């Protein structure tokens, strides 16, 4: 559903220039997108209400109140009957004013949700117009007195409020047709300032009317144009309805804008009835006009309510979509969790299997080795040299198998054990490793040096194993004629928001091609034959497994003939 809130609609637009051709491009001009249209019933009813009273009047129905002069003696009831016009007028006007109050209240609550400043501004304009009407009504009901005479005051204040209504609506809407956009943050300030401006003008007019001694005549019952002052708002509303409102509805499409456009129709009808129809107070056209004025307020109110409902529905829809998406995410998260626990279980089973398999394989292997020994010692070399040779080879294989199984067991045990992570001193660990490798170190005349090493978060025995393996390798793979040198250095680095110690173990051994940098960490992968260097190829795989269990990483930089540098990342 593509519903753009009015806020989104007020994206920076280039100024739509006032061109005559815009007015005459009727199709384009009055086109309103579907989501901003008013229900057809409302449009039809409005048009009907504008036309029907006129037709009914032609058919002879009179909506006016009695204009007979009052008899000499009046009962209270008589008085009320004679004042019926005034009462009708007051009721009609006050209904219009009430509708205007509702509009402005709803406009502000609409603003609080959508931050769209068009609605409150126009709402305030409507309210000011309504306030003018209220003033006029209070004058008409003699609830307030002014300096001038009432027979002039009432029609003058009517004319005034109509002209004011037309102007303020044009100004209120016209504000938004300028090219400059008002930033939403400054919206509230703008609304307050504009409202104050409208109110000030309104008050000024009221004040002037109330304090002027002579007010111009506004009723000319015998002319064709009975109330010439109503021609001004008539023209203003025609301009509004034909040009300003449609332009506004294009720029800031919303149901409210469409309703505003539609409200031009009853406004024009009001003016037509007053300008050309009403000859005196409370006659048929007078009452019809006042009734239509209510309609003119109610329609924008209805538009605003529908906008409100629309906005609310959209929010609810969004909420539902969010809820659905959230639920889907939850389900997905649950699935992932389940998959994870299945994986973890599977891993545990694999490790257990590796452990059990290696363990159970040891038993028959032991027998093979034991009986191999027996066989070896019972075969006489001089008699059966070939058989002895076969047996020897068989025994070698058995020995090899034993180392593989031992190493596999060691490897699988790395995963099984409980890790007690605490701060451990690498200095101490390295000291232990060097101690235990003393024999090999002195054999190879090796030199091991390291700077002050940090304490890291880890498991002591496991880290000992890592460095034992690394140092053993460096010693094993040292250059034949050169004394082995191992240097260990450390450095702090940060990856994202995690802090690590980077430990480098550099040797000057035989090195290897960098392309094998990943391969050597694999289980039982070696770069040399058994005859060249002993070992099963499990040492680095164990290192990698341990380091990864520490949430760290291990990698290597090496050059054939130069040496290797193992780089470990361990958590601080």
């Amino acid at each position, binding site marked *: 559903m593509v519903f753009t809130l009015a806020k989104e609609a007020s994206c920076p637009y280039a100024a739509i220039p006032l061109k005559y051709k815009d007015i005459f491009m009727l199709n384009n001009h009055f086109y309103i997108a579907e989501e901003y249209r008013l229900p057809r019933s409302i449009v039809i009813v409005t048009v009907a209400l504008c036309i029907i009273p006129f037709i009914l009047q032609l058919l002879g129905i009179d909506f006016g109140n009695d204009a007979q002069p009052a008899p000499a003696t009046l009962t209270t009831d008589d008085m009320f009957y004679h004042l019926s016009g005034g009462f009708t007028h007051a009721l009609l006007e006050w209904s219009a004013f009430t509708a205007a109050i509702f509009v402005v209240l709803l406009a502000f609550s609409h603003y609080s949700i959508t931050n769209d400043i068009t609605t409150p501004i126009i709402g305030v304009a409507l309210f000011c117009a309504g306030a003018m009407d209220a003033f006029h009504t209070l004058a008409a009901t003699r609830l307030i007195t002014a300096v001038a005479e009432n027979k002039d005051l009432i029609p003058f204040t009517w004319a005034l409020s109509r002209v004011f209504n037309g102007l303020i609506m044009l100004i209120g809407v016209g504000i938004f047709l300028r090219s400059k956009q008002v930033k939403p943050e400054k919206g509230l300030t703008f609304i307050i300032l504009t409202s104050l401006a409208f109110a000030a003008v309104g008050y000024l007019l009221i004040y002037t009317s109330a304090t002027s001694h002579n007010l111009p005549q506004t009723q000319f019952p015998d002319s064709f144009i009975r109330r010439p002052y109503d021609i001004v708002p008539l023209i203003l509303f025609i301009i509004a309805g034909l040009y300003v409102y449609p332009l506004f509805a294009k720029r800031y499409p919303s149901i409210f804008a469409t309703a505003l456009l539609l409200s031009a129709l009853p406004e024009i009808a009001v003016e037509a009835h007053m300008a050309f129809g009403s000859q005196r107070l409370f006659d048929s056209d007078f009452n019809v006009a006042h009734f239509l004025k209510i309609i003119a307020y109610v329609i924008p109110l209805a538009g605003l309510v529908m906008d409100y409902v629309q906005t609310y529905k959209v929010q609810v829809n969004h909420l539902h979509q969010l809820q659905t998406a959230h639920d889907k995410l939850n389900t997905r998260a649950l699935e992932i969790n389940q998959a994870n626990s299945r994986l973890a279980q599977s891993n545990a089973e694999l490790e257990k299997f590796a452990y059990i398999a290696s363990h159970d394989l040891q038993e028959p292997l*032991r*027998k093979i*080795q*034991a*009986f191999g*020994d027996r066989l070896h010692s019972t075969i006489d070399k001089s008699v059966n040299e070939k058989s002895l040779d076969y047996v020897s080879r068989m025994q070698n294989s058995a020995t090899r198998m*034993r180392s593989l199984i031992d190493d596999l067991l060691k490897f699988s045990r790395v995963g099984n054990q409980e890790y007690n992570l605490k701060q451990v001193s690498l200095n101490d660990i390295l000291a232990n490793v060097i101690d235990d490798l003393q024999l090999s170190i002195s054999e190879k005349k090796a030199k091991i040096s390291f700077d002050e090493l940090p304490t890291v978060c880890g498991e002591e025995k496991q880290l000992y194993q890592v460095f034992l393996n690394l140092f053993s390798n460096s010693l094993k793979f040292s250059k034949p004629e050169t004394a082995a040198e191992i240097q260990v250095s450390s450095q702090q680095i940060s990856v994202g928001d995690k802090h690590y110690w980077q430990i480098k173990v550099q040797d000057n051994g035989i090195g290897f091609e960098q392309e094998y940098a990943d391969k050597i960490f694999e289980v039982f992968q070696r770069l040399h034959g058994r005859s060249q260097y002993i070992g099963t190829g499990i040492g680095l795989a164990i290192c990698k497994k341990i380091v990864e269990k520490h949430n760290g990483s291990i990698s290597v930089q090496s050059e054939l003939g130069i040496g290797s540098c193992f780089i470990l990342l361990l958590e601080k």
Partner: protein
Amino acid sequence: MLSDSTAVTIHMCDDDPDDQLLVTDALHEAKLATPIDFTSNGKELLQYLNREAPYEHMKGKPLPGIILLDLNMPVMDGREVLAKIKSNEKLKSIPIIVLTTSKAEEDIARTYDMGVNSFIIKPVSFENLVEMIQSVTDYWFSLVSLPKQ
């Protein structure tokens, strides 16, 4: 020093016939004349030691000088029979040497707790087995004084 070392027998309780064979061979290889007999599980061992059926024919004969005990056996395993022997007034004084493939720290600790005299992991090569038998017999029969049975 035992006056009559040849009368003392070694008894081995192990379900694996290969291991029984190897130990027998090792004794020969070490040129030891010590007699050795076998049972295959804890239940049989108890029957043997108590001279119950099917070992009634052993009645009257002295109990073995030492027992080599395997841990992992069917019917009744080494740990169970060890506990039973060490709680039996008549039998508890016989030195027991656990001879097993299990390297588990747990087993070592627990069997010592139960009063085992020694814990040996079965040697891998035959040579080592011979050495072990030599050491055991030297220690327990020549060096050490055994209680009278």
